[in-house]
């Protein structure tokens, strides 16, 4: 065929492989995960996620520099996420609506559901993609810092235990934050409104938590103040981390002792269940529309 002539070969049947639902699920996870970082989308939609990734990495870079130059450990692994919670919140608000809103707004959903993809497949793939996106955002800087610590060869043993605890906690953060953010975002097909709803939820939760904890602390009721901290999803997960891995609490007041740890874990599970149930209800309705 070196003549360079284009032949119209007519319609060809597809005789190749037809893979199952698992393939479609994986493809949808990858597609959504790439989309969460603006990959495969316009150049403009890459700006925000990449800016946030860079901002998340800045403390890690600073920490490595301090370790290399001053031989001092500055930022811990266990409190990295709570320290950076505004950045994480912006990422959740900016990117979670992208995963769910366009398919609802532009009515792409029926095209998925007229294929072997089911509603649970679709919702599951979106949740898995968002969990992976949040995990990449928060686990990358923690891991970069740890690799830095190993390379710099600090005096004393490396903080491997704290790092591994923080990594496990990152998974809990990712699951909780992804389920909540997607559930909130899925309730409006408009992306702008979704962004506002998600950010409002986290600001409200952390604001209410800070105010109430402050009030009870000033009344010298530090036990109640500790419970109030758990209204903030970030401190809720941190309380679980303190309980499970014995890390230093990141909050201004100590978390409630005794039943506090198990209750925080139950709280995390409750939020995740609520988020998933809300998503299931939302999509059951959307699918029959």
């Amino acid at each position, binding site marked *: 065929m070196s003549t360079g002539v284009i032949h119209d070969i*007519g*319609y*060809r*049947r*597809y005789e*190749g*492989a*037809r*893979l*199952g*639902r698992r*393939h*479609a699920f994986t*493809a*949808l996870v990858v*597609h959504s995960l790439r989309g969460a970082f603006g990959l*495969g*989308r*316009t150049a403009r*939609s890459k700006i925000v996620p990449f800016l946030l990734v860079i901002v998340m990495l800045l403390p890690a870079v600073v920490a490595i520099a301090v370790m290399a130059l001053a031989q001092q450990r500055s930022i811990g692994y266990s409190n990295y996420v709570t320290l950076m919670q505004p950045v994480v919140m912006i990422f959740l608000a900016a990117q979670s609506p992208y995963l769910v809103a*366009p*398919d609802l707004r*532009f*009515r*792409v959903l*029926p*095209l*998925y*559901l*007229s*294929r*072997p*993809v*089911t509603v649970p497949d679709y919702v599951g793939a979106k949740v898995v993609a968002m969990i992976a996106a949040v995990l990449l955002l928060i686990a990358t800087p923690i891991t970069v810092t740890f690799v830095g610590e190993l390379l710099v060869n600090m005096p004393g043993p490396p903080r491997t235990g704290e790092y591994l605890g923080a990594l496990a906690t990152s998974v809990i953060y990712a699951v909780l934050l992804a389920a909540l953010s997607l559930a909130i975002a899925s309730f409006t097909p408009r992306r702008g409104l979704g962004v506002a709803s998600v950010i409002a939820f986290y600001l409200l939760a952390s604001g209410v938590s800070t105010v109430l904890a402050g009030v009870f602390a000033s009344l010298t009721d530090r036990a109640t103040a500790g419970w109030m901290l758990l209204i903030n999803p970030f401190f809720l997960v941190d309380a679980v981390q303190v309980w499970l891995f014995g890390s230093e609490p990141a909050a201004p007041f100590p978390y409630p002792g005794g039943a506090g740890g198990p209750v925080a874990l139950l709280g995390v599970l409750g939020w995740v269940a609520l988020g998933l149930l809300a998503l299931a209800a939302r999509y059951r309705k959307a*699918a*029959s529309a």
Partner: protein
Amino acid sequence: MRSSTILATEGLSRRFPRVTALDRLTVTVGPGVTGLVGANGAGKSTLIKILLGLLEPSAGTAQVLGMDIATQAPEIRRAVGYMPEHDCLPPDVSATEFVVHMAQMSGLPRTAARERAADTLRHVGLHEERYRSIGGYSTGMKQRVKLAQALVHDPRLVFLDEPTNGLDPQGRDEMLALIRRIGAEFGISVLVTSHLLGELERVCDHVIVVDGGRLLRSSSISEFTEATQTVTVEVEEGETVLAARLRELGESVVPHGRLLAVQVRGDETYDAVRDAVCDLDLSLIRLEQGRRRIEDVFRDSAAEPRRADDDMATTGRGPA
């Protein structure tokens, strides 16, 4: 009797709280291009959604490609394609990316999905523009992308819901030609809906007419256009009187404006027309062999209850 059955419904019903969208529909569809005709709200889209397993029927059963909709919906969805009536395209991706993604959702591996997407977009007539964002497309181009995503996984049957909606006359012609090619050249069976009867006549092998969720008629195009021979009669004036006289003589007459379509029972029909015109002393302008169009069938069924009271309405393209 058709050699093979593509889909069959049996007493299929769907009741919504306030409206019955499908009412005991029993119909069989064979290979080729089948038109599903009915006014808006006649139950066409509801039928397609039930066949895809997106909506549960209130009663009745159906088989698509020999598979039961109640138990084999995933297998059905793997083997069919669906082009919805409504917009369903995200604006910020290119047609290529979108169709590749949809091919993967149908189970095609990534490389195969790329190849099939390029092929299919070429077949529906999207060329260089397929790399641009869909947001900037014309209605005609968007309809082509919607069609491409329905064909990309090489289904055995496609459901096309109002594919000519919103297109200008030229776009409509091109879409209809494409549908004809899908049925004839690609070898994919097509169920295409429209509320415009005339356009389906040009591409369908078989037409099903539904109204208010009920089956009005299901027959092949040849039956529609040949079995029901008519003769068109045009007189200078007095067509009302002529129609009345012909009916007295036992002929069935359908007024089409100033023309009368008279159903041919045999040679006696021609004699009846001749005699009636002579008796009434009318000036005959035209006496012509007419082939009934499928519109007439629909008009008949719609006008039937009113025929007694001398209804000369000619606008009845079907119940609203």
